[in-house]
């Protein structure tokens, strides 16, 4: 039953990512060239709705569907981790035209190349696991 809820949420997410074109390589290129408002509108609206919703959840100590409280873990401050890690992610985002969720959406849409992107992304997370102790955080 719980699995079905996740599955349905995923289907909804996939349709939104496709129909909003946020998962499109073309739109990501357009965004990084500042040539249309499209992607900024999507992200801006998401954050614009997210800020009051997070505030409301915290204020009323809203619980999730299983009855557990929704807790926001503050991220520990660090320059290296977010700046370097973020930059590497950005390089990959622009090159592949998709962040993790949209990679799977594109596979579903029938673009086989994204299966290679997915396998390589999973490999990237493993390599990070191996190098974690040697990287500045």
């Amino acid at each position, binding site marked *: 039953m719980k699995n079905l809820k996740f599955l349905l949420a995923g289907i909804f997410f996939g349709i939104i990512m496709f129909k909003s074109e946020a998962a499109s390589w073309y739109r990501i290129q357009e965004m990084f060239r500042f040539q249309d408002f499209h992607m900024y509108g999507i992200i801006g609206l998401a*954050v614009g709705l997210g800020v009051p919703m997070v505030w409301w959840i915290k204020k009323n100590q809203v619980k999730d569907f299983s009855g557990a409280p929704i807790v926001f873990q503050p991220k520990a401050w660090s320059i290296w981790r977010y700046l370097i890690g973020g930059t590497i992610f950005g390089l990959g985002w622009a090159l592949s035209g998709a962040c993790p969720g949209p990679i799977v959406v594109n596979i579903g849409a029938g673009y086989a190349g994204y299966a290679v992107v997915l396998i390589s992304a999973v490999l*990237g997370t493993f390599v990070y696991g191996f190098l974690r102790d040697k990287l500045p955080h």
Partner: protein
Amino acid sequence: MFLVGSGIGGYIAMNFLSPEGYTVAISDATIADLTALGFDSPEGFVPASQFSWEALSTMSNLWILIAGGFMVGFGARYAGGCTSGHAISGLSDLQPASLLAVVGFFIGGLAMTHFLFPLIY
């Protein structure tokens, strides 16, 4: 399960919720830039020259897919989150760390688009 659902969602949207011959309507300026780099005019949801089944047989293409995916996976773990984690959820929670991560996303994305794309394509 969420990811399986995302794939199913992509399939449904592509095959049942999009018109025949659907193409992402990006701006003329972007089309001009991409054409100058040697890409075909936009067709479909993403460039077939890069992501179609046939494109997998080109070695240089394969390296682009591998490199792009690797940096997405590695970077997302290193930065402790991706677009939805930092840019949407983190900024919604007004986390300074997420703002810095988003700055990083754009440093990387802009460098790739404006400096590395002309070298790669």
